[in-house]
């Protein structure tokens, strides 16, 4: 992957994401591997998993407010897409992934900043977790109270298909609970499950805690202990390509701080 991808991947990925993003990666592409990411003028390039969009946008305002002249350029996309961009030399200062496996790809590509990594024991720091929750309509028509209720007769359930990430987490949770839930439908992604619950078409669905939080009072979330077996960890790290390791470290510190924890908790994330 790393040996063949660098020539082609950055351009393709840029083309794919350029419309949605502030064209961060593409503009500075000419810099190549040798030259630093930002030019040290207070621009900080943060690559983050799409599920962090709201949280990091809020934190960026805070960050810029505290540091006149600093500008946070955010690049949101799927974690694995971002990891591929970083490994192909995209100019990024900080990377926050939605799972440890994706961050490992960057660590193995020696993408972490050596100075920062030595301070953190060579690994990225886990700053948030996301767990599965049972989502039910506000009036809870199926009377669902715990995970075993999902397997009950007459309870209609929507789950993620096993082929997609939330479905894999669901399978892990079912195994941990020793409960085999036969849903009415295997949805194509976690948002589709949430929609079915919001519309009241099913009595319950398994979604992430952040999805429950984003749905507000349209759904009610129910915790279940078996979810602890299928926790998604979100790691963050300063990257080797950073132009301003100080500023990058400041950002990571903000995310790990009490302020970061509060914003993350509001969005439904857990603390590691």
């Amino acid at each position, binding site marked *: 992957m790393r040996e063949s991808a660098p020539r082609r991947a950055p351009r393709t990925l840029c083309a794919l994401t350029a419309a949605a993003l502030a064209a961060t990666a593409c503009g500075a592409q000419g810099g190549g591997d040798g030259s630093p990411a930002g030019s040290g003028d207070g621009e900080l390039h943060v690559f983050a998993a799409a599920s962090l969009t709201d949280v990091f946008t809020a934190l960026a305002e805070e960050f810029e407010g505290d540091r006149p002249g600093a500008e946070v350029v955010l690049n949101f996309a799927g974690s694995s897409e971002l990891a591929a961009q970083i490994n192909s030399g995209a100019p990024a200062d900080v990377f926050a992934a939605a799972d440890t496996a994706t961050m490992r790809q960057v660590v193995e590509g020696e993408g972490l900043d050596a100075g920062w990594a030595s301070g953190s024991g060579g690994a990225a720091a886990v700053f948030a977790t996301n767990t599965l929750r049972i989502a039910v309509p506000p009036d809870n028509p199926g009377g669902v109270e715990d995970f075993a209720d999902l397997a009950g007769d007459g309870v209609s359930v929507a789950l993620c298909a096993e*082929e997609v990430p939330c479905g894999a987490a669901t399978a892990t949770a079912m195994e941990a609970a020793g409960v085999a839930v036969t*849903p009415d439908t*295997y*949805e194509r992604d976690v948002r589709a499950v949430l929609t079915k619950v919001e*519309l*009241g*078409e099913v009595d319950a669905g398994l979604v992430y805690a952040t999805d429950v939080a984003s749905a507000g009072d349209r759904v009610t979330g129910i915790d279940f202990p078996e979810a602890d077996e299928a926790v998604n960890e979100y790691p963050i790290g300063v990257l080797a390509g950073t132009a301003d390791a100080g500023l990058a470290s400041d950002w990571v510190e903000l995310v790990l701080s009490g302020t970061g924890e509060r914003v993350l908790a509001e969005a439904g994330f857990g603390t590691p």
Partner: protein
Amino acid sequence: MTAGGPGADRDTRRGRDRPPRVRSGRPPWILVLPALAGAAFLVLPFAGLLIRAPWSTMGERVTEPEVLAALWLSLSTATAATLVSLLLGVPLAWLLARTDFPGRRVLRAVVTVPLVIPPVVGGVALLLVLGRNGLLGRYLDTWFGITIPFTPAAVVLAQVFVAMPFLVISVEGALRGADRRYEEAAATLGASRATVFTRVTLPMVLPGIGAGAVLCWARALGEFGATITFAGNFPGTTQTMPLAVYMAMQRDPEAAIVLSLVLLLVSLAVLATLRERWVNT
């Protein structure tokens, strides 16, 4: 629909395929070139599938029970959707083509709405009306204990929603193109409007109905967005071939190619048979 055995049938058709009357020289390049380009554009993606297909494991993949279940569900629901569309769509097309009433233009525009909106939106709209908490669905649930989503019936309804407009539009076009003097003659001889419809109009526009039904069936067979949104996705119950292809794509793109090929070949075979039977009559 021609009387006689299959052999006789084929002979008449051959005769029809040849230029029947005057040979008017070579076809002009200004038509032939774009026609060939168009054909190539339609055929090449299919060739791509054929080249990438894992032929060595084809046999065992195709006969997996889940594949056969999805194929059967697709064929039966698409056929049911076409029958429902014929029952409702032909009268609707007649209403649009042969009567005049206030709001007819609006009605015709409404009929084409499913052609324009993304099928996923159509699926959400169906949920809002026929879902368990939908405008009508809630009464079906409380009065009769019927819930439509997550059943094969929901698959059929989703398909009717997206595919019936194709039938209505082609039948309406056929009705407008048909010579109305025959209908008028029948009426002056004392036939009621219903009799004129069944005895005169219907036989005249039968080829149009056949073409519309084929379009409708093909569209229903390929339906994805409205189906997965309204009917959900459960193997054997609501997982049609397009849904199975989508799910396979997440896990094993080769399996997705196999499923696509199966769907393509079966639908081509059915369409070829139907065209011979219906469209050429």
